[in-house]
């Protein structure tokens, strides 16, 4: 995706190749995520000159991919910050996509000698880590916040660097949520192994007898918490993620009820919906609208309830 032109400034292509697409798919499933790092610095798209706009971004390859494929037929400079291979929003929250890094990078690539204007476009979500007035004070460059999504960047530039309210708003629609579910599932592998080992242990010492039916019920709970809750999120009643997960988990568990005796069924209804609730609660981190204070409040109620429900349920199972 990068090659060198005459002026010794690396050139970025706006075409995604087949391997780019495969890589982004792998990253979604959590395979080798950390190896998608780009060297920080200044890159060219098209044939930019001293009047061309400067777009700031992170050095996570998938972030750069999303940006560059929107820049066809555009001449622009791309200033890639060193965010340790993490996307703009998260890097901004972690403090790597930051005022300091931006000011230093502007100096290092001698941006003032490359362009004749004093304006840079920073993605809006980078504002979490960047203070526009401090960048102006320290570097002389004026930050204009671009749209949240790269797909709006052309329209933004063509409208004279103006973003509509839509462009300024983070969304979290069904597709956004759906593409996150593979990661939720891979993240659930570790806890799942622990659960299965515990079941095996209980079987082994002969206290309980867990069979293939229980495994199906567990998988049902997993799907309810990691896939169905994220996908159906806004339509499930309630606001807390754990509650939403519990509700779907309850429906799911009732499909798997063994129906042999009441106590056993009750055990199912205590254990599996609580597991769904736990997995759903973990989706708060992937969502784009939960606050720290909100999650703390949710956890105050959810964590003790989940633990209690699972413990009681396992005992009576």
């Amino acid at each position, binding site marked *: 995706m990068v090659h060198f032109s005459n002026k010794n400034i690396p050139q970025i292509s706006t075409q995604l190749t087949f391997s780019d697409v495969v890589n982004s798919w792998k990253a979604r499933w*959590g395979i080798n*995520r*950390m190896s998608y790092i780009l060297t920080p610095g200044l890159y060219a798209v098209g044939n930019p000159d001293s009047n061309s706009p400067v777009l700031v971004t992170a050095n*996570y390859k998938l972030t750069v991919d999303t940006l560059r494929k929107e820049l066809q037929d555009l001449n622009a400079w791309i200033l890639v910050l060193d965010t340790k291979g*993490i*996307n703009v*929003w*998260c890097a901004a*929250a*972690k403090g790597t996509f930051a005022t300091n890094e931006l000011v230093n990078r502007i100096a290092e690539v001698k941006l003032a000698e490359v362009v004749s204007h004093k304006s840079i476009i920073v993605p*809006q*979500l980078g*504002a*979490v*880590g*960047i*203070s*526009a*007035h401090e960048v102006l004070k320290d570097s002389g460059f004026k930050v204009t*916040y671009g749209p*949240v999504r790269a797909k709006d960047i052309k329209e933004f530039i063509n409208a004279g660097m103006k*973003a509509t*309210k839509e462009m*300024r*708003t*983070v969304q*979290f629609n069904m597709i*956004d949520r759906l*593409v*996150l579910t593979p*990661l*939720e599932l*891979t*993240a659930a592998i570790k806890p799942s192994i622990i659960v299965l080992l515990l079941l095996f242990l209980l079987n082994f010492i002969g206290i309980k007898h867990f069979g293939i039916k229980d495994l199906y019920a567990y998988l049902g709970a997993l799907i309810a918490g990691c896939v169905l809750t994220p996908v159906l*999120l*806004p*339509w499930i009643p309630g*606001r*807390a*993620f754990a509650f939403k997960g519990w509700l779907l988990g309850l429906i799911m568990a009732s499909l798997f009820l063994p129906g042999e005796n009441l106590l056993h069924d009750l055990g199912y209804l205590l254990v599996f919906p609580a597991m769904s609730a736990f997995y759903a*609660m*973990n989706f*708060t*981190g*992937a*969502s*784009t*609208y*939960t*606050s*720290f*204070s*909100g*999650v*703390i*409040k*949710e*956890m105050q109620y959810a*964590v003790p309830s989940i633990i209690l429900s699972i413990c009681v349920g396992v005992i009576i199972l």
Partner: protein
Amino acid sequence: MKNKYLKNVSTLKYMPDKCVGCGMCVNVCPHRVFDIKGSKAEIIDKDSCMECGACAKNCPAGAIEVKTGVGCAYAIIMGKLMGTEPTCDCSNGKSGKCC
């Protein structure tokens, strides 16, 4: 359909006295919490605030305060277990907000 999280939890504080009406908070907020009414900013949807801190960081007048943090249960659990501040630890491969 709009996603809505818990009500009345945000730590967002806005001091209209200091506001110079530059509109930066409106520009940076990803959830349209602020709007400009007349010559000053106004909070129009506090419950949508996710405490990202972008508005406070970019308010040149220091008119906004918010306690920022990650809205991620996994990070908070890990923080509690390790006895550290909860952070988006991307290396675990979780979280879409993060990576």
